[in-house]
């Protein structure tokens, strides 16, 4: 059984990231949360903060997001952010 799920990070202007990942750590309005494979369907609002993604190779990537939504259903997650900047660690 694969431990990967699909993630796409979208802003109104462009597609920032698209691919399979192991883990997503995101700033919800109610605090940071993590999502692994087979997560229950969920929609949540995002606050401003750091978005961390562990990709298929186990390497971590970081972004700074400000506002938006996070949705996951059927092992397919989407970050709809107002703005995204790449961040170092």
């Amino acid at each position, binding site marked *: 059984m694969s431990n990967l799920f699909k993630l*796409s990070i*979208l*802003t*109104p*202007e*462009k*597609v920032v990231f698209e691919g399979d990942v192991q883990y997503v750590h995101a700033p*919800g*309005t*109610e605090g940071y949360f993590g999502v692994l494979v087979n997560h*229950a*369907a*969920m*929609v*949540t*609002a995002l606050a401003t903060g750091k978005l961390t993604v562990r990709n298929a190779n186990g390497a971590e990537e970081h972004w700074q997001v400000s*506002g*938006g*939504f996070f*949705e996951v*259903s059927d092992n397919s997650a*989407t970050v*709809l952010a*107002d703005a995204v900047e790449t961040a170092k660690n």
Partner: protein
Amino acid sequence: MASLKDLRRRIRATKSMQQIFKAMEMVAAAKLRRAQARAQAASPYSAKISAMLANLSASASELEHPLFKVREVKVTALVVITADRGFAGAYNTAVLRVAEQRLKAAAPGSIQCIVIGRKGRDYLKRRHYPVLASYADLPGEASLELARTLTNDLTARFMSGEVDRVEVLYTHFVNAMTRKVLQETFLPIGAGAANEVVAASTGSTIFEPNAESIFEELLPRYATAKLYASMADSLASEHSARMVAMGSARKNAGELVDSLTLTRNRLRQAMITREISELVAGAEALK
């Protein structure tokens, strides 16, 4: 009959115009490619946010929001998206013609315009149509900033009851040769949006913190995304219209140069022939 000197001057002038047309055509082609890429890059987001909205309104049907409410329509705001610059064939005229038809058909005062682009603003103001607001000196590329400002402006007017309905008139880019003026209802949002994809909902989605607050956050973003998409689409149309218009202007200039050159050569030949026969006649007379 034009003199040889006049003809030469016209040929030179037409040739330099042709060069300008060619340059403008190439600039428009380059800008079209960029505008198209931007319009395409925006589409995953707006598709996703539409799906989310549909999903949300399907799984929580009791949700209510002022932006969703269909009211009795007394005043409609018509957002007309045009360009700042002309030289784009029928691009501006096509949109403005549709707008003018709407304005003429409606009772006076029941349609208020909000114009984007200097061309549209000047046209409607000159004809004394009611213009609520106008945005000119647009950025060269589709701007999210502008879409946000405009969304805020429009929602504020809608919420305050100044207008009861907002429609957007823009040009949809089909391909480099074809454009279509489209009219979409922007506010209230429910009119068309929520019914799109009601199937996908499982009803078991967790909403955090709750469906209402997500709904509240989602609506303005949905509106912005939609407006941004229309603006990006219009911009691609503008550049493609300009590219086509400049292309045919360049071709016409080329044909003009050809026919002028032909006339010039004939005239020159005729002059030479006349001079020779005069010389021959003079020589004969001296014998």
